[in-house]
């Protein structure tokens, strides 16, 4: 009746994981072909959160494009702001004052802590360890309160400005932050690491899963802790320092095997290093202005100055109505180390007041693309571990 079929047929199940799924960290969609529990093929689909940030930025002034960057990686918006400001400052050739640099560094590292906290704890939550999530959110809450104290916003801060930061930080802020940095390393050791670091189930779920070698990781374009887990000490803060990173001491933790566990350890270690950086910054914090002397050309003056000072009023009026001053013609690429990896801004200027082209090199975008590689020979539960380990935010991936 039928001719003998030569190849072995198995019935695969195709499941669409996401875009609404608790473990996909937003609106990532994975189409998984499963043979039983093992993954035959994994295809990521992105773009559910695409808002056309690059297109929008082309139609805005350099200043008003700043809030767009908040909404990329919405849990580490300060780093994105700083990355953008560094790029635009490089384009205009201006340099923020020392104090502003230190403040930015502090803010970036606070963001790194809160972002890594979310990264690690949601990863642990996906794998089933729920308590770490709640422990770490308590500490994240303290940081967010501190953000609120200085910027008035908790998540989308828009605090840095081209040529500095919006306003100076208060002494109270620094004191409270210092208090936090005193306590935090102990919290990491006593509460985070004891919970899962040596847990046998945690080790079983993370060791030897999603292994990627150093060469391959570089070839895929991975950056940040995801790359450092494979043993490559590539950190832009170290090798192309911006802000105050060349004035503080810190180590770049690297992993050895390039598996999920090593990446987790890298993030855990970076928490301590960030804490160290913040502490040094507070200790070394210089006095002085927080805005570059030539920066008023780019940035709105503070409200109280506008209401009392004639020059500031004129300045604001010109900025709002006529648009900003023209940028020099040229193109720059500026990379900064955000918690997820390397955030690159490639800005092409045609000499007008708006970016002609603003390209965002988002780490999450690259990291999602490596998922099919990580999920090779994986089983369903490993897919979850792999999504957690690349620590993605879809707002940044889809832009």
């Amino acid at each position, binding site marked *: *009746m*039928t001719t*003998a*079929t030569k190849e*072995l*047929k*198995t*019935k695969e199940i195709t499941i669409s994981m996401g875009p609404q799924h608790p473990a996909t960290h937003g609106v990532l969609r994975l189409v998984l072909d499963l043979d039983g529990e093992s993954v035959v093929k994994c295809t990521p689909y992105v773009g559910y959160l695409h808002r056309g940030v690059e297109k929008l930025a082309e139609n805005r002034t350099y200043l008003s494009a700043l809030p767009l960057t908040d909404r990329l990686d919405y849990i580490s918006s300060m780093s994105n702001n700083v990355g953008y400001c560094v790029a635009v400052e490089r384009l205009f050739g201006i340099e923020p004052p020392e104090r502003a640099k230190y403040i930015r560094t502090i803010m970036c590292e606070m963001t790194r802590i809160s972002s890594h906290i979310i990264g690690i704890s949601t990863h642990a939550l996906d794998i089933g360890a729920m308590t770490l999530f709640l422990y770490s959110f308590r500490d994240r809450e303290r940081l967010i309160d501190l953000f609120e104290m200085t910027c008035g916003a908790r998540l989308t801060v828009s605090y840095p400005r081209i040529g500095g930061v919006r306003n100076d930080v208060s002494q109270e802020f620094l004191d409270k932050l210092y208090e936090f940095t005193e306590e935090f390393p102990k919290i990491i050791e006593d509460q985070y690491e004891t919970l899962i670091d040596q847990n046998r189930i945690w080790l079983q779920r993370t060791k030897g899963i999603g292994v990627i070698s150093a060469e391959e990781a570089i070839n895929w374009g991975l950056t940040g802790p995801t790359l450092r887990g494979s043993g490559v000490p590539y950190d832009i803060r170290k090798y192309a320092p911006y802000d105050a990173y060349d004035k503080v001491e810190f180590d770049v933790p690297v992993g050895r095997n390039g598996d999920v566990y090593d990446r987790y350890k890298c993030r855990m270690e970076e928490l301590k290093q960030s804490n160290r950086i913040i502490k040094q910054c507070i200790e070394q914090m210089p006095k002085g202005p927080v805005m570059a002397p030539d920066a008023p050309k780019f940035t709105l003056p503070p409200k109280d100055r506008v209401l009392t000072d004639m020059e500031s009023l004129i300045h604001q009026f010109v900025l709002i109505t006529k648009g900003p001053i023209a940028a020099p013609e040229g193109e720059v690429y500026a990379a900064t180390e955000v918690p997820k990896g390397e955030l690159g801004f490639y800005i092409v200027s045609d000499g007008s007041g708006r970016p002609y082209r603003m390209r965002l090199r988002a780490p999450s975008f690259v990291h999602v693309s490596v998922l099919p590689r990580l999920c090779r020979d994986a089983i369903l539960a490993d897919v979850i571990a792999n999504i957690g380990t690349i620590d993605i935010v879809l707002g940044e991936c889809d832009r």
Partner: protein
Amino acid sequence: MVPLDWYIGLSAVIFVIGVVGFIIRRNILIMLMSVELMLNSVNISLVAFSHYLQDLRGQIFVFFIITVAAAEAAIGLAILVALFKNKAAVHTDEITEMKG
């Protein structure tokens, strides 16, 4: 007291239903289930004998039959899975060759 004949009659009817099911169904799964049905009908009559003849031999036999049934189900289903992987068919008339 229910006569022993009734039990044997019931067992026979179920056995025959199992036989008929085995013969007329196309689906191998249901055919395997019919075999289980036949085994169970035999078990009923054995337990009934054991009860009425006041001898435990019948019940011991039921044990062995359950063992064999478990083995049969495991092997039968394994064959079925292997067959399905090769042919994607569970119907008897679609499986006409001996070659895999």
